[in-house]
Structures are given as structure tokens and as C-alpha cells.
């Protein structure tokens, strides 16, 4: 499916544990990776909280998403983008995140949306 495949942008906007959205978005992303579809991930709004280190979910009885996210590069998913203003308003430094991300300003985010053939909105 990958030779003439439409490139997909997955937009991750929710925190990791307030509901199952982040978890189910990641399941969808892993599926796209398994089908070898060209894929980019944009973390914005509370989605950037998915990338904080030191997550320890024992107390809430949920699976640790931050243990799964670093698996993505092994599936050849390598384009991780983070919206700058989402980081800034949350006081997060991109260097501390659990994935190697590229920080995009709002003009670059617009270009990213424009260049994607299909969008998965989470």
C-alpha cells in the first residue's frame, strides 16, 4: 500500500490519561506504521503532555503510554512535531521530552497541515 500511499498527519491533542483518546490514537498510529503508510505526528495542546518523562501509572491502574511511544522509531515512524505555543504555555522544554521532536511555529504548523494528504484528528 505504501508506494502510492497518501501521507497521513495524526494530530494528538489530548493528555495521556484523562480518557482513552491518547491510547487509542497511538493504537491507530501503530496500525498505520504496520501498513507502512507515510506518517507524521503533531503533538499540540495537552497532547504535548504525552511526551513528559517520569510517567509512573501504577497508582491509576493504566498502561504507561510513555513506555510505548518510544517504540515508534523502530516502526520507521520518525517525524514527530510539536507546536511551539503549546510547549511555551505549559512551560515545557523540548529537550526534556521522551521523543526527538521538531518544534514548529504556527506558520510551520500551517505548512505541515497543507502538505498532508489525509488527517487523523484525535
Amino acid at each position, binding site marked *: 500500500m505504501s508506494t502510492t500511499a497518501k501521507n497521513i498527519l495524526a494530530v494528538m491533542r489530548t493528555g495521556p490519561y*484523562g*480518557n*482513552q483518546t491518547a491510547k487509542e490514537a497511538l493504537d491507530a498510529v501503530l496500525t498505520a506504521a504496520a501498513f507502512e503508510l507515510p506518517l507524521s505526528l503533531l503533538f499540540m495542546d495537552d497532547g504535548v503532555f504525552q511526551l513528559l518523562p517520569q510517567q509512573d501509572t501504577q497508582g*491509576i*491502574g*493504566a498502561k504507561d503510554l510513555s513506555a510505548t511511544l518510544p517504540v515508534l522509531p523502530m516502526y520507521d515512524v520518525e517525524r514527530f512535531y510539536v507546536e511551539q505555543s503549546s510547549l511555551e504555555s505549559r512551560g515545557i522544554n523540548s529537550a526534556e521530552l521522551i521523543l526527538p521532536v521538531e518544534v514548529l511555529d504556527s506558520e510551520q504548523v500551517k505548512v505541515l497541515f497543507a502538505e498532508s494528504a489525509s488527517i487523523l484528528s484525535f
Partner: protein
Amino acid sequence: MKLSILVYGSPNGSQAAATAYRFTKAALEKGHEIYRVFFYGDGVYAASALNTPPQDEQDLSSLWRELGEQHNLDMVVCIAAALKRGVLDPGEAKRFEKSAHNLSAGFTLSGLGQMMDASQQSDRMITFGY
């Protein structure tokens, strides 16, 4: 002290369903009496016996059922909220000529009067919204 717990969040759509369970367990461990756990809104989905989470994920329906058995909890599911969401006991399944019933053991379908009764009879009532 006599506590009642209101649960409005869907087990997957909201962390509130899991927090309500943890709170109830902690209250019991502290020796408090749980007067009632009342499931309303999408919270009623926790009472489906058909929920089949993967083995490495929390199974809230089973956890509630076990906690209920251990402590003889009054776990009431709002009947109006449950019917529209497809959580039926054998009686309602028959009445509406549905093909199956799925209310998990330990839960009871009843009316909103049980929520009002809890507000009057409990020393404390706490809501876990979605």
C-alpha cells in the same frame, strides 16, 4: 461515616470511572460504610458483563463486581440511563423483547429515586463526573 458515590464517566471515555473505584476502595479500607454507589449517564457502561478489556488493561467491571461482593455494596445503575445505553437485566430484556441481557452480577437497575435517597441518607456524597 456513611458515604455515597455518584459515577457519571464512561469507563474508557473518562478516567473518572477508575478514580471512583479507587476512592470507594480507599473509603472501605478506612472502615467507612458505603451507603450506595450510583451509576448515571455514561457511567452505566461499567455495569456491562460483556466488557472484555485486554489482559494487560484494568477490568473495571470485574473490579467493581469483586469489591461489591466482598463488601456487600449496593451498586445501583439508573434504569433510564441504562436502558437507552443498552445495559439490561433479564426482566428489561424480556419486557422490551431484546435478544440478550448484559447487566453484570452485583449491579441492580433502579430509578433516580435511589440517587435522591442517597443524598438524604448519606453523611457525604461525592460525584465523579466524566
